[in-house]
């Protein structure tokens, strides 16, 4: 952020009279606003796409009344959410009930800060990027628990507890499955992780194809992440057929909207992390985005990153509408007896690979065979 402000001052000499901290603050607020607009738009359009994909998979049409092909449905839904009466149950804990949606939304939105959207398009390249995402998303758990508890409703309470147990359990495989990418890059910064996957190998420079363990680790991450974002087949906290709608059952209006947006925000964060750590992030195959002029480099890399992330989001939706829901005990068994041990074995495998082959991946070794 500060280096950006410095270069801005250099480019526009008029600004050198303005105190440094105002410029930095303005830049921060502006980038936060851009990210917020992106997150909100993604939530809106995402909900439309989700319903269209559901329609296709279930052999029906989906939303088709508002605007051409129902494309404006999400605007109508948004207006409806804002205008709806905001109801707080009489026996609810009013303060915590009102507070919970903000916890959830802030926890999911704060992760956007470190997502590497392009060559230079990152709000803040923290040197602990991956851990930062895990830290702020832990706020979501607190918010979900509070929402379930403050509603003073049995279904909400059950949903909240299921969600908390699930997120806390699946946090471990999610973190461990991301570690191979961190080991290869030698850094927790997401921008460094993306840069380590460049080179002339194109698609084969990605961590996904680095070695068999990283290939496996991508699928472990994706499975665990699907559970961490509470999506089918792991959507037990919501389980419409048994819990009505889980922890957010008592919420209406814009408060419900916050939960809704946070859910889509989480989906994008998960897809973006998978993209950055395993699918080469903003790298465009066989094109050196960093060497291009700044404008085109940023624009093309942004396009590449969003294309990859959106493709993963589509896959998540596809899984969501295809697989049936697990039982609670099956869910916990899967986390602790299968995913956690597998991710640890995988981490060990990647570490040994890096030690034995001096950090080289299979594609690099094959490339060096041919000179």
């Amino acid at each position, binding site marked *: 952020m500060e280096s950006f402000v410095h270069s801005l001052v250099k480019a526009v000499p008029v600004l050198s009279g303005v105190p440094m*901290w105002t410029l930095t603050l303005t830049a921060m607020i502006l980038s936060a606003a851009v990210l917020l607009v992106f997150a909100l738009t993604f939530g809106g359009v995402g909900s439309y796409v989700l319903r269209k994909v559901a329609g296709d998979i279930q052999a029906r049409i989906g939303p088709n009344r508002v605007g051409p092909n129902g494309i404006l449905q999400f605007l109508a839904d948004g207006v409806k959410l804002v205008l709806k009466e905001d109801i707080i149950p009489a026996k609810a804990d009013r303060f*915590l009930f009102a507070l919970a949606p903000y916890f959830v939304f802030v926890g999911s939105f704060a992760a956007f800060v470190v997502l590497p959207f392009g060559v230079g398009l990152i709000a803040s390249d*923290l*040197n*602990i990027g991956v*851990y*930062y995402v*895990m*830290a*702020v998303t*832990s*706020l979501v*758990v*607190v918010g979900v*628990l*509070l929402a*379930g*508890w403050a509603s003073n409703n049995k279904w909400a*309470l059950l949903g*909240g*507890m299921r969600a*908390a*147990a699930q997120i*806390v359990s699946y*946090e471990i495989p999610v973190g461990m499955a991301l570690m191979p990418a961190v080991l290869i890059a030698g850094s*927790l910064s997401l921008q460094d992780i993306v840069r380590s996957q460049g080179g002339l190998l194109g698609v084969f420079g990605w961590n996904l194809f680095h070695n068999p363990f990283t290939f496996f680790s991508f699928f472990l991450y994706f499975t665990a992440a699907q559970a961490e974002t509470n999506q089918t087949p792991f959507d037990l906290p919501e389980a419409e057929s048994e819990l009505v709608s889980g922890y957010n059952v008592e919420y209406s209006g814009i408060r419900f909207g916050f939960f809704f947006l946070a859910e889509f925000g989480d989906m994008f964060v998960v897809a973006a992390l998978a993209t950055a750590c395993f699918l080469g992030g903003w790298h465009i195959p066989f094109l050196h985005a960093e060497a291009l002029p700044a404008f085109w480099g940023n624009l093309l890399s942004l396009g590449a990153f969003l294309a990859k992330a959106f493709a993963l989001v589509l896959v998540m939706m596809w899984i969501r509408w295809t697989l049936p829901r697990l039982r609670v005990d099956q869910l916990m068994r899967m986390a602790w007896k299968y995913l956690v041990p597998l991710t640890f074995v995988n981490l060990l495998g990647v570490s040994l690979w890096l030690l034995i082959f001096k950090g080289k991946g299979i594609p690099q070794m094959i490339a060096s065979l041919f000179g």
Partner: protein
Amino acid sequence: MEPILFILFGAIAVAGSIMVVTRKHPMASALYLILTLFAVAALFVLRQAHFLAAIQVIVYAGAVVVLFIFVIMLINVPENKLPVERLTALRFLGVAAAGLLILEGAVLARKTTMPGGTAADSGSVQAVGRALFTDYLLAFEITSVLLLAAVIGAIALAKKKI
């Protein structure tokens, strides 16, 4: 800028921890504990220890306090049935112990010279890792044995038949 932020987050941490021990409802205490932990994480960030700050939030705010809240929710004592704590000798002992601790901290702070400035990499993953696996290796390994004992203990307590 840094002293102002230090005082701000330090005040939040102190006020939060006072609220933790004085609130009547355990849920309120748990929430103030989260606030305190976040303020301490902010203090770590001010000392350039980003890694420690993230770990603090992940482990304490994200897992430990969540478990506290979990237990509070599971037991779910109604508001009017919360136990009323009487003013006992233990409370005064607690205050005295806290006073002693503060005094001890003050004396220690006067005697030891803190490493000056904030070196850019003193709190980085590399620095923390090196310190853990060289200077503090024994303590680190013993902690892992302690955790293993805790895990086995938890399983032994929870399982009816092993």
